[in-house]
């Protein structure tokens, strides 16, 4: 068995050599120009603008005054910023821990070809079709301690002060985020699993591997890059949870769910301190980029290498 595989691989690589060279050179660089132009205009330039604003004092109405590092000083010494970072990290961690396994398993489950699984996949997909604001408003109504689901159905254990209790609220937010985004990641995993050639499973079956063994030895390794993509979206996406939390809790009670992006928005548009909000914006961008880079590194340097050799 091992000799035939090696032989096939040699053959394959010899056959693929010319095409691989063109791949390494890549298509013409001009293809990147339109996207690059948009990116420069709508991302790089505003980013530089915000970097500039972070060294100014501006209330959004009057003159923009250069003010050195005072906005940065305000932001970095404000305990609310530290708290916002902590809350963001917690949401990021718990969101990942909850969402990743659920969506991986659901993705594998819905990837199979039985009809009932396809029907279930459509159902799982529904939350993704709703806007975050609608989801937040609906959950806010359901979780209301006086008019919500618990008192409505007479179920005391559901009648907790879900959104008003500083200790509970974080987990409620994680739950609602998961409810909305698990379908999206399920879809990614479903696509990933369907890309795995059936021949791998057939070979494994012949070798006598059970379902669990197949999952851990074929499905998981084959999904490596899907996992990285999905995790990147999950982790970096946690930095952008805004609309859902804003509508659901407005960052409260107190500062318990005041995420970094929410803190930035409230500082800029409620307290009208654009200098400090810009400094927070810069921090947010730096953290986002660092996380994305780190996750890409996890995939190893040779990201473009095929995983399907020998398949």
């Amino acid at each position, binding site marked *: 068995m091992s000799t035939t595989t090696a032989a096939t691989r040699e053959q394959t690589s010899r056959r693929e050599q010319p095409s691989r060279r063109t791949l390494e050179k890549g298509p013409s660089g001009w293809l990147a120009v339109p996207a690059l132009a948009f990116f420069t205009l709508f991302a790089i330039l505003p980013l530089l603008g*915000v970097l500039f604003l972070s060294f100014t004092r501006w209330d959004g109405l009057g003159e923009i005054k250069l003010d050195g590092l005072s906005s940065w000083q305000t932001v970095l010494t404000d305990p609310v910023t530290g708290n916002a970072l902590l809350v963001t990290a917690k949401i990021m961690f718990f969101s990942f821990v909850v969402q990743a396994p659920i969506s991986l398993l659901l993705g594998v489950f819905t990837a199979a070809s039985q009809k009932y699984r396809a029907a279930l996949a459509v159902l799982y997909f529904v939350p993704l079709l709703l806007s975050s604001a609608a989801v937040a408003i609906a959950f806010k109504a359901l979780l209301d301690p006086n008019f919500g689901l618990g008192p409505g159905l007479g179920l005391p254990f559901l009648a907790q002060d879900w959104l008003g209790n500083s200790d509970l609220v974080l987990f409620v937010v994680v739950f609602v985020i998961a409810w909305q985004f698990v379908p999206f990641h399920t879809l990614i995993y479903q696509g990933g699993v369907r890309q795995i050639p059936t021949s791998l499973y057939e070979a494994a079956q012949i070798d006598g591997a059970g379902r669990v063994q197949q999952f851990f030895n074929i499905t998981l390794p084959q999904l490596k890059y899907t996992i990285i993509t999905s995790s990147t979206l999950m982790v970096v996406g946690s930095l952008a949870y805004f609309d859902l939390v804003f509508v659901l809790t407005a960052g409260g009670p107190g500062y318990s769910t005041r995420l970094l992006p929410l803190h930035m928005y409230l500082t800029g548009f409620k307290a009208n301190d654009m200098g400090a909000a810009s400094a927070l914006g810069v921090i947010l961008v730096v953290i986002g980029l660092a996380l994305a880079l780190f996750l890409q590194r996890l995939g190893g340097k040779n990201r473009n290498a095929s995983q399907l050799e020998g398949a």
Partner: protein
Amino acid sequence: MNNLKLRTAGMAVSAAVLSISLAACGSSGPAGTGASAGSATMWGLTGGDQPVFQASVDSWNKSHPDSSIKLDFFANDAYKTKVRTAVGAGQGPTLVYGWGGGVLKSYVDAGQVDDLTGFLKENPDVQSRYLPSILESGVIDGKTYALPNNKVQPVVLYYNKEVFDKIGAEAPKTWDDLMALVPKFKAAGVAPFSLGGQSKWPDLMWLEYLVDRIGGPEVFAKIAANKPDAWSDPAVIEALTKIQELVDAGGFINGFSSIAADSNADQALLYTGKAAMILQGSWIYQGMKKDAADFVKSGKLGYTPFPTIDGGKGNPANVVGNPSNFWSVSSKATEEQKKTALSYVKDGMFNDDNVKALIDSGAVPVVTGIEDKLAASPDKDFLTYVYGMAKDAPDFTLSWDQALSPAQGDAMLANLDQIFLKKITPEQFASAMNATIGK
């Protein structure tokens, strides 16, 4: 000119990047004003006055097709954010809806709204139709920048008479009465007070009244005048202590910090009998009249002034709240838009239909000579009560979050939220707020 460009560019830049970082946030940019040069734009608030404004503008547009007004409505909290951003970018509406006070002053300082003193001089009819004390709230440094556009809004203590009858209680006259009622209502399974704590500004009504009753209006006057350490006044500390005592006693409904006032959930708790009392603005009467018509009509809704406090310096007839809302005219509007806006203010606003519609909605218009009309209304008990309350008040303090600068107002609401949640002490509140003086 350069400054303006820089500012506009700055606003665009920060809006762009903030929206990039918030990729999922779907808020649209400010609506442009220049659809057609002659038609003025107007932004109002959703809620009790919405149909009244809509009817007034509709009838204006019908009779003035050449100088029409385009009217949009926004929810209260969302509006406050949106209008400031829009005005800062020179994209605000022709008629800017406001509350007077510190926010108006920041517009005046930035040269964003027009001086209307000359307009009032040319049109003495407009000047004389208003209650003088209320017109005063639109004056900054001796010049009028904002004209009242709707109703007086004192803060009132509402109570559910049915719930009170059930336990044989009477409306509290003193703070001690109020504290004594708390355990009685709790024993009867009713929350003593409803509170829209997530919106934060309903919390403020407690602080405003308590400080006024304990120390008189001078205490806040010092704060508003940016006197150093004004927040450390013993009256502020005592008021905050009393708030925390009420929280400790279980005075506020379960989950008050997740109840939003914008959705009217706080007043629903009162008329459904889940809460016995609520401290709120006179405007919630309009909401309850609509959402709980039977409750209001059958006389189950009671109202009373905020209780007195033993040894307090403030006059028990003092009132806090909003004297009115106001229209300011954007200085960035075209001449034609301004002309349309001002002729609407002159002829379209507070005409007989408009006054009648306001009264019918359950509000007291801010104009003189309406006593007869109020007395003829089915809501005469409440309306004459509110009218008398506003007219006879020795002092009418503007809501603090509007009276102070926006930065201070926001810090105050955030810190007060922490007081209600018992995360900070009154002393910590005072020192945090003293640090914002002059900002």
